[in-house]
C-alpha cells in the first residue's frame, strides 16, 4: 500500500470507529446480569403502562450542550433517556416521548422552566442545566424537577410513579395522627427576619405527599376527616377517647389503618436530653400505645420491654471513634422480611430503633401475618434498662426467646373496641360550657378491614432513614436503607395501588457478609458469661474501693492508716487487672473475625501464585519428557 492510501485508510477507519460507537450508543437494548433484574422493567411497571387509557406525554429535558457537566452526570442522563425509551416501547403507543435539549434563552428553556424543571448550577462554569421530566395527561402536568444520580436505584419507581400520578385526577386522602414531628413545624416569620430557615418536614411526608393529600389530625381532635383512603397513626400519645373511637370505626368501615407504636422513642429521649433530667425534670414520656384498640384487634404489645437481637444488633458509632454493637437497634437484613406479602417482598434492609414486639391473641379470629421478624437470637430487654445500661450489659441481659415479630398485618372481621358506642366527653370544669350531648347511636360493631402495626416509630424519622446532602445547590436526600421504601410501600399497598410496590426497592440490594455476622453473634454468646462474671467482680471491687476511699478523706486531711492505704492500692491493682481482662475479652470477641480476615488475605494473595507455580512445574516436566 502507498503511504497516501494508508493515511486514507487510517482516516476512514477512524471515522468508521467513531460512527460505529455512535450507532452502538443508540442501540435500544442492553443485557442485565443482576440477579434481581435491576436494569429491566419490572412487571409492576409493565402492568401500570398497560393500564394507560389516554396517551401520556413525557418531555425529557436535558441541557446536553452545557459545558463543564460532570461525566457521571452525562452518563446518568443517557441512562435515564434509555430507560424512558424502554418505557416508550413497553407502553405500545400510549406514551409520547420527547427528548429536548434546551439551550440558554430559547423557547425550550422557557418550556422547561414552565413545566417546573428546576435548573441546576454547574460549579465552576456557573451554567444553568435542566435535567428533569414533565409528564402531561389531558390538562394535568406533573414534573420531576431534577434527576439525581444518587437515586439511580429508584429511577424506575420514580418514573412509574410520575406516570401514575399524572393519571390520577384527585389525590387520595391520608389522615395522619402523629406525636412525632413528622411534619414541618409552623414557621414564625419573625424567625425569618432573624436569619433562621424553616425546618423541613421529615422525608417520609414528602414520599406520602407524592400520592396522597396528607391531612394532619391533632391528638386532641375528637373526629376524623371524612372519606379517608388510609389512616396513619404514629406514636399515639394521650389520644382523646373520642378519637380512639373514630379510629375504631374507621377500621371497621373498611378504611385501612396503619399504626406505629413505640415502647421507647429515641427521638423523644434525645429531645429531653440528660441535662433536663439532671435538673430534676420529670423523665419524658417516650412510650406510645393504643392498649384498648390493639387488644380488641387481636394484637398483644407491651411498652415494658424492648426487643434485643444478638444477631441483627446494629453496629453504631460509639462516639469515641469505635464501633459498638447495639442489640436494641435492629439492623434487619432481607431474611427478616416476609417475602410472601407485597409490601415487604422486595425489602433488603431496615433499621428499627428500640422496637417492641407483637404477638397475636389466640381467640381473636383474625389473621395475623408477621411482616418483619427478628433473628432467632432475640429476646426481651426491660425498657427501664435502656436508660442506664451499656450495650454490652444489654446484650448480656437478653434471654433468647426465639424470633419476635416487630411488624404485622392483621386482616379479617374486626370487632369494635367500643361496644357501648361513642365515649362521653369528660365532664366540663366549672366555668366551662358543657360539652354538647353525645350522639348515643351505637356505632358499627364489626367489619372487615386491614390493620398494620409496627412496634417502633423512630424508623420513620430522617435520622434513621436518609442521609441529607447538598447536590449542586439543591437539598437532596439519599435513602440509607429501605425504611422509607417500607413506609411508602405499605401505604401504597394499603390504599390499593399495587403496581408500584413491585418496583420500589429494586437495586438497593445489599449482600452482607453473613458468615462474619454469625461469628459476631456466636462470639457474643460465648463470652457473655465470662463478661457477666467479670462485670460482677469488677463492680464489687469498685464498691469496696469507693468505701475505703471515702473513709480516708476527713476534712481534707489524709488520715489513712498504712493498712487502709495498702488495701486501697491492692483494690486499685485488682481493678486495673480486671479492666485489662475485660479489654482482653472484648478483643477476643473480634479475634475470630480478625483471624478470618488474615486467613482470607493470605489465601487470596498466595492461592493464585501457587496455582501458577504448580502449573509451571508441570509444564516444565512435560516439556522435558517431550
Amino acid at each position, binding site marked *: *500500500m502507498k503511504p497516501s492510501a*494508508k493515511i486514507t*485508510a*487510517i482516516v476512514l*477507519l*477512524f471515522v468508521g*470507529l*467513531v460512527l*460505529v*460507537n*455512535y450507532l*452502538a*450508543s443508540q*442501540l435500544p*437494548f*442492553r*443485557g*442485565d*446480569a*443482576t*440477579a*434481581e433484574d*435491576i*436494569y429491566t422493567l419490572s412487571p409492576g411497571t409493565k402492568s401500570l403502562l398497560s393500564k394507560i387509557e389516554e396517551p401520556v406525554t413525557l418531555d425529557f429535558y436535558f441541557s*446536553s*450542550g452545557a*459545558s*463543564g457537566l*460532570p*461525566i*457521571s452526570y*452525562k*452518563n446518568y442522563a443517557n441512562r435515564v433517556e434509555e430507560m424512558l425509551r424502554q418505557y416508550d416501547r413497553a407502553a405500545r403507543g400510549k406514551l409520547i416521548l420527547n427528548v429536548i435539549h434546551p439551550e440558554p434563552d430559547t423557547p425550550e428553556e422557557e418550556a422547561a422552566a414552565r413545566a417546573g424543571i428546576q435548573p441546576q448550577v454547574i460549579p*465552576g462554569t456557573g451554567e444553568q442545566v435542566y435535567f428533569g421530566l414533565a409528564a402531561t395527561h389531558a390538562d394535568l402536568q406533573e414534573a420531576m424537577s431534577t434527576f439525581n444520580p444518587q437515586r439511580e436505584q429508584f429511577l424506575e419507581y420514580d418514573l412509574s410513579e410520575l406516570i401514575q400520578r399524572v393519571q390520577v385526577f384527585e389525590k387520595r386522602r391520608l389522615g395522619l395522627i402523629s406525636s412525632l414531628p413528622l411534619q414541618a413545624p409552623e414557621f414564625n416569620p419573625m424567625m425569618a427576619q432573624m436569619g433562621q430557615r424553616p425546618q423541613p418536614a421529615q422525608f417520609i411526608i414528602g414520599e406520602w405527599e407524592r400520592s396522597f393529600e396528607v391531612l394532619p389530625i391533632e391528638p386532641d381532635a375528637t373526629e376524623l376527616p371524612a372519606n379517608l383512603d388510609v389512616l396513619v397513626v404514629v406514636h399515639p400519645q394521650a389520644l382523646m377517647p373520642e378519637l380512639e373511637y373514630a379510629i375504631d370505626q374507621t377500621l371497621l368501615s373498611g378504611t385501612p389503618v396503619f399504626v406505629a407504636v413505640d415502647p421507647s422513642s429515641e427521638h423523644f429521649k434525645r429531645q429531653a436530653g440528660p441535662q433536663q433530667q439532671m435538673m430534676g425534670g420529670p423523665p419524658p414520656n417516650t412510650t406510645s400505645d393504643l392498649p384498648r384498640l390493639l387488644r380488641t384487634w387481636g394484637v398483644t404489645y407491651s411498652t415494658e420491654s424492648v426487643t434485643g437481637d444478638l444477631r441483627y444488633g446494629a453496629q453504631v458509632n460509639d462516639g469515641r471513634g469505635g464501633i459498638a454493637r447495639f442489640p436494641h437497634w435492629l439492623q434487619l437484613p432481607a431474611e427478616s422480611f416476609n417475602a410472601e406479602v407485597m409490601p415487604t417482598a422486595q425489602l433488603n434492609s431496615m433499621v428499627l430503633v428500640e422496637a417492641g414486639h407483637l404477638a397475636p391473641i389466640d381467640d381473636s379470629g383474625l389473621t395475623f401475618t408477621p411482616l418483619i421478624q427478628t433473628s432467632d437470637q432475640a429476646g426481651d430487654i426491660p425498657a427501664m434498662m435502656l436508660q442506664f445500661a451499656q450495650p454490652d450489659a444489654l446484650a448480656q441481659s437478653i434471654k433468647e426467646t426465639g424470633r419476635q415479630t416487630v411488624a404485622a398485618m392483621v386482616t379479617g372481621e374486626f370487632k369494635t373496641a367500643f361496644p357501648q358506642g361513642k365515649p362521653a366527653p369528660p365532664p366540663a370544669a366549672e366555668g366551662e360550657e358543657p360539652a354538647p350531648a353525645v350522639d348515643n347511636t351505637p356505632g358499627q360493631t364489626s367489619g372487615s378491614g386491614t390493620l398494620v402495626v409496627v412496634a417502633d416509630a423512630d424508623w420513620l424519622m430522617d435520622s434513621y432513614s436518609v442521609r441529607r446532602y447538598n447536590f449542586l445547590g439543591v437539598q437532596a436526600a439519599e435513602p440509607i436503607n429501605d425504611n422509607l421504601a417500607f413506609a411508602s410501600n405499605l401505604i401504597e399497598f394499603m390504599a390499593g395501588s399495587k403496581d408500584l410496590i413491585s418496583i420500589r426497592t429494586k437495586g438497593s*440490594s*445489599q*449482600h*452482607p*457478609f*453473613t*458468615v*462474619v455476622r454469625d461469628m459476631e453473634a456466636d462470639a457474643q454468646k460465648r463470652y457473655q458469661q465470662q463478661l457477666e462474671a467479670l462485670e460482677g467482680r469488677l463492680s464489687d471491687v469498685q464498691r469496696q474501693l469507693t468505701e475505703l476511699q471515702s473513709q480516708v478523706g476527713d476534712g481534707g486531711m489524709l488520715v489513712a492508716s498504712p493498712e487502709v492505704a495498702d488495701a486501697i492500692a491492692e483494690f486499685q491493682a485488682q481493678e486495673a487487672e480486671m479492666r485489662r481482662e475485660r479489654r482482653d475479652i472484648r478483643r477476643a470477641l473480634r479475634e475470630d473475625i480478625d483471624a478470618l*480476615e488474615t486467613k*482470607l*488475605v493470605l*489465601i*487470596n*494473595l498466595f*492461592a*493464585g*501464585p501457587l*496455582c*501458577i*507455580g504448580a*502449573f*509451571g512445574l508441570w*509444564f516444565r516436566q512435560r*516439556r522435558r519428557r517431550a
Partner: protein
Amino acid sequence: MSQVIPVFKREFLGYFRSPVAYVFLVVFLMAAVGLAFFVGRFFDAGQASLESFFVFHPWLFLFLIPAAGMRLWSEEKRTGTVELLFTLPITTLEAVVGKYLAAWAFLSAAVVLTFPMALTVGFLGDPDWGVILASYLGSILMAGSYLAVCSLTSALTKNQVISFVLSVIVCLVLVFLGWSIFSELLESFLPLALADLLANFSFVTHFEPFTKGIIDPSDIIFFLSLTGFALFLNVVALER
C-alpha cells in the same frame, strides 16, 4: 487467516516457557488482591461484592499490560526476528492477530486466576454471581483493548522502554478521558460535540457498567472496535 492458530499456539505456549511471564502473573495477582484488601478495604466494607476489587483494574492494567505487551513487536524488531517471521508463509495480519490473541489469552488467564476472590465473597455471603461474571467479562474485554494499544506502540519502536512509556501514556489518556477535569479541559479548546465524543472513548466509562451488572452492547462494541482499530494500525505500522 489459516496461519493465525499456529502463531497463536506458538506464542501462547511461549509465555509459559519464560520465567518473566510467571513473574508477571504473580505480580498481577498479588497487586490485584492487595489493592482490594488493603486499599479498597474489601473486608471492612462487609459486602459480598467484588466492586472494591474491580474498581482498581483500569489502574492496574495501566502499568501491567504495557509491561506485558511492550516486547510483543519491539523485541522481534530489535533482534531482527521480525524479518524472519515475514519470510514465513504468513501475512502481517495473521501474525498480528495470532500474537495478539495469544497475549490476550495469557492476560485473560491472569484475570481468571483471581477466582479465589470470587470464591471468597461466595464463602462470606450471598453475592450476585451475574454481576461478578459480567465484571470478569468487562475486565477481560478492557484488558484486550489495553493490549491492542500496547501491541501498536510496540510495533512503532525497537526499544521496549519507549514502547512501555508510550503505551502507558496512550492508555492513561484513554483512562483520563472519562474524568471530568480532563473533559472540561477538552471542552475549553474543542467543540462540545467533539469533546463529548472523545470523552466517550474512555476505558473507565465503558468498564463501569459491567461492574454494575449491565452488559451494554455499546460497551462491548467500544472495546472490540478500539481493539480492531489499534490492530489495523499495528499492521500498517509493521508494513511501513
